[in-house]
């Protein structure tokens, strides 16, 4: 009777271990940060690539409209892929696009904009990547949708696609 009980406990324990390892192996082994609650737009100061002056974030997001912050770099291949979609989105009057140029060479960034078009109402320079950290970004491209209350309501990691554009349009309508 006692041996049977021990065997039963052992089987339960092994099944428990198996379930944990099975679940663990099925999970993706790369971690992606998610937006679980709405966060305020960070407070920062950044240099405008065209005006060549530092601007406060309060001034950047001062209008009562939706904003999109797109983190990009001229050396980033997926950024080229998403650029035509950003050009399309920039035609929408309910939203303003802010480009955050991430750890880039300024001349290359300006060349990129003149070659592929400028979807941004303002392009800011993030020399050392610390402004991207304030947003909670960890690479390029990343795109953040900011509502009229200056809260980050959506975060898109990687290049945006047509489906994401449709989702954004339905939110900002």
């Amino acid at each position, binding site marked *: 009777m006692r041996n049977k009980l021990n065997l039963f406990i052992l089987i339960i324990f092994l099944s428990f271990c198996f379930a944990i390892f099975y679940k663990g192996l099925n999970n993706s082994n790369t971690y992606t940060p998610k937006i679980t609650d709405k966060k305020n737009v960070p407070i920062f100061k950044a240099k405008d690539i065209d005006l060549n002056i530092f601007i406060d974030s309060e001034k950047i997001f001062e209008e009562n409209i939706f904003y999109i912050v797109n983190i990009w770099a001229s050396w980033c291949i997926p950024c080229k892929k998403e650029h035509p979609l950003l050009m399309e989105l920039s035609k929408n009057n309910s939203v303003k696009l802010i480009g955050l140029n991430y750890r880039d060479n300024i001349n290359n960034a300006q060349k990129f904009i003149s070659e592929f078009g400028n979807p941004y109402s303002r392009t800011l320079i993030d020399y050392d*990547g*610390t402004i991207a*950290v*304030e947003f909670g970004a960890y*690479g390029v491209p990343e795109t953040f949708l900011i509502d009229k209350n200056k809260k980050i309501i959506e975060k898109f990691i990687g290049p945006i696609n047509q489906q994401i554009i449709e989702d954004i349009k339905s939110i900002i309508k």
Partner: protein
Amino acid sequence: MKILKIFLIILLSMSFEPLKSEENNNNLKNKILKNTRCLICQGQSVYDSESDFASSIKLFVDKKINEGSSEEQIYEFLREKYGDWIIYDPKLNKNTYILWLLPLLLFFLGGAMIFKKLSNQK
């Protein structure tokens, strides 16, 4: 002469003060970076990684320490932006309670088994 010596000692100890504070800041920075996971090279800490993300975090932590933020405030900021996973030392919450409580449970279970065996032998 004695007064001059005392004055010189005080002056010298004061001139070492900024160096000491810089060393403390560096130690704190290294401690935080070693306890922070790089999200690009996910097997490495930010301290060991040379990715763009890691170098941005290094600069960011440095900036926060110079602004006077405490170790816990910096961890809290990183957790808020990137989730609990970015810190190697996980907090007790609904996702990690098994991790924290299972070793304790096994410890007490083992203790109870040993205690029972010993009292049976007596």
